[in-house]
């Protein structure tokens, strides 16, 4: 068999996957701090008044369909909402220990986005500006990015039969590229949203906490959650009270899946060796068993022949036999019988 060729093929496959997994590892093992000058937004929920002006601006800037209820209808806030394929951002109202609070939701533009790490066609890009954008032209519509995003952000156009796609906030990448502010930030009347370099925003947030320790809980949400996000939050109450999970951990998506990806080259490298080894052993066992059986049969045959010869000569000396054929039959029988015995033993 073309064993060598086959092993060569496997080796090549191993190298390939090692290289591939190597890349994944590069993204997975070391902590990626994000692009140095990337932007972000600081959302200070203590300032938000739930006016929904950001929602309206987002709708206009991104040319999304007009909603059933107008943006100045604040009754919408009575039910908790999430981002959808027609709303990249929504504001929710929460009853908290410090009274009513509002919080805006949109894509957090993670430093190491789970959506991008999960997408098997690289439809997401983490841009140097800090935004995470999506390219519809390669998307298969598997929705694994939606499974992956801990913040439940990506939405899907479920009612589109032919060209369904993922819809999510782009941090107004086209506007940022022109040096303008994102639509929501521009529209906010209360400066509850601050756009800037993420490193600066962290400092601003720290400063606010330092100056008004009673107003804020001592945490910048998003500084480290899921490996860090471009959008960061200041809250007046513990984050779960405004619908933000505090159990997400600080591991980014590539860190979470890196281990599983790293085993790939191990499997590709080790399995063939192991399996061929096992095969060789079982084959050898077969061979030895066969060989032993053969030897036993040969020995038995020799012995039978010798026995038969003794018998024959005995018969010959004992009497003059006229019918030679009779003896031949007897010999054959003897040989067969003695051959049978060790054979069955060998099989047992």
């Amino acid at each position, binding site marked *: 068999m073309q064993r060598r060729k086959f092993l060569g093929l496997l080796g090549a496959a191993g190298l390939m996957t090692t290289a591939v997994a190597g890349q994944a590892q590069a993204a997975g093992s070391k902590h990626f701090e994000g692009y140095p000058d990337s932007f972000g937004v600081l959302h200070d929920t203590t300032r938000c008044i739930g006016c929904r002006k950001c929602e309206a601006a987002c709708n206009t800037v991104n040319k999304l369909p007009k909603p059933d209820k107008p943006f100045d209808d604040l009754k919408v806030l009575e039910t908790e909402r999430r981002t959808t394929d027609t709303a990249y951002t929504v504001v929710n109202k929460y009853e908290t220990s410090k009274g009513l609070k509002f919080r805006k939701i949109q894509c957090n533009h993670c430093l190491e986005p789970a959506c991008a790490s999960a997408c098997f066609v690289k439809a997401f890009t983490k841009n140097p500006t800090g935004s995470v954008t999506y390219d519809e032209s390669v998307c298969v519509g598997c929705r694994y990015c939606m*499974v992956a995003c801990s913040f439940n952000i990506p939405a899907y156009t479920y009612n589109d039969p032919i060209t369904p796609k993922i819809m999510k906030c782009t941090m107004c990448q086209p506007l940022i590229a022109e040096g303008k502010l994102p639509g929501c930030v521009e529209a906010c009347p209360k400066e509850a949203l601050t756009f800037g370099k993420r490193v600066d925003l962290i400092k601003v947030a720290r400063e606010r906490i330092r100056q008004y320790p009673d107003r804020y809980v001592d945490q910048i949400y998003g500084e480290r959650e899921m490996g860090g996000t471009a959008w960061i939050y200041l809250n007046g109450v513990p984050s779960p009270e405004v619908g933000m999970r505090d159990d997400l951990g600080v591991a980014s998506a590539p860190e979470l899946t890196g281990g599983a*990806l790293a085993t790939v080259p191990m*499997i590709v490298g080790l399995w063939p060796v192991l399996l061929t080894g096992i095969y060789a052993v079982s084959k050898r066992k077969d061979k030895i068993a066969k060989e032993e059986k053969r030897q036993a049969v040969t020995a038995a045959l020799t012995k039978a022949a010798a026995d038969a010869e003794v018998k024959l000569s005995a018969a010959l000396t004992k009497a003059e036999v006229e019918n030679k054929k009779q003896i031949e039959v007897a010999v054959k029988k003897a040989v067969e019988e003695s051959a049978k015995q060790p054979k069955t033993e060998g099989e047992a």
Partner: protein
Amino acid sequence: MSQDTAAGKGNLFNIISGIIILAGLVVTFLRFTQGLGGVTNLDNNNPWGVWIGFDLLCGVALAAGGYTTSAACYIFGLKRFHSAVRPAILTAFLGYAFVVFALHYDVGRPWRLPYPIFVSPGTTSLLFEVGLCVFLYVSVLFIEFTPAAFEWLGFKKIRKVVVKLTLALTIMGVILSTMHQSSLGALFTIAPSKLHPLWYSTYLPVYFFISSIFAGMSMVIFEGTLSHHYMHGLMDKTHLDEADGVVLGFARGASMVMMGYVFIKIIGLVSDGTWQYLSSGYGLLFLTELLCFVALPAMLYGIGSREKNLKLIRWTSLLTVLGIVFNRFNISMVAFNYQLPSSQRYFPSLMEIVISIFVVTLIVTVFRFITTRMPIFYEHPEYAEHEEEPAAHGHGH
């Protein structure tokens, strides 16, 4: 008389599968005209439903019989499983082919399914690994299946070439299976905040791989039971003689693997420190899954194989298969998004279920079509067993 009842059975089967296929075609039409929104209960919070939980996760796990059987026979040298290899390979091939088929319903733009491999590979994604391995493995299974087709068609030369590749294909099959079976579990490692801690574990890939082994073995036993019931006439003497041995061997093997699985699940529980959740409602579900659907059948398999109780083993295989379905459902649906209020949880729509049943019916129909024509349950008279080592069998008459 018995001829009549057999014909009756066949008719009934045809009528029922006819109805299912018709319903499936209607939903297919709706799916590709109304989109997923028109036929499924999926939404933005619940992007994966029963088409992933059953058709993909269970489909792939239960088709693992292909690699376990061929590895047992060709790598571990357990030649007495030889007659079980072909049915297992055929089931695996059909299983995977229909997993891919079912994915066409679930993904938004099915014609782009080759994109991850040929257009824009997203190598950081575990789904990429699943896709690549499944693609390669379907090809391997197809090649492994072809000798039966070639014998049926009488293409001797090319058959011989493929038969020579058996060992290489088997090893390749084991590697690819190890990778994608485990990667399917690893898919969920990216979402620790969504999967209940009792099921979430960094060992998910290991759990998925190990459980695929006994899933595959149990499926071989279970499916063998059905085949013996309905297609007894198609089996040759070797197949019938070896069948009980296969059942006993696989029962013993599955029992051991399942014990090991229970053991590592407990280790995982302790090392992930999640045992404190056991007293919750989800804990009850978890314990049911582990004790009633793994530990219990492991014991029953053990007893069955020791006492050579084939009936017990056959029922146990059904229990094990259901346990695998239960586990995959828990991970992909029941324990997934556990933190959402019940009003936002997912439950499949009737039409989603229709498609899943439709796909299973198609598999059974094609399986019947092939086994009634090609040498699957018997050896083709013109191709003696193990012809590559003719010395081994001095057939005395």
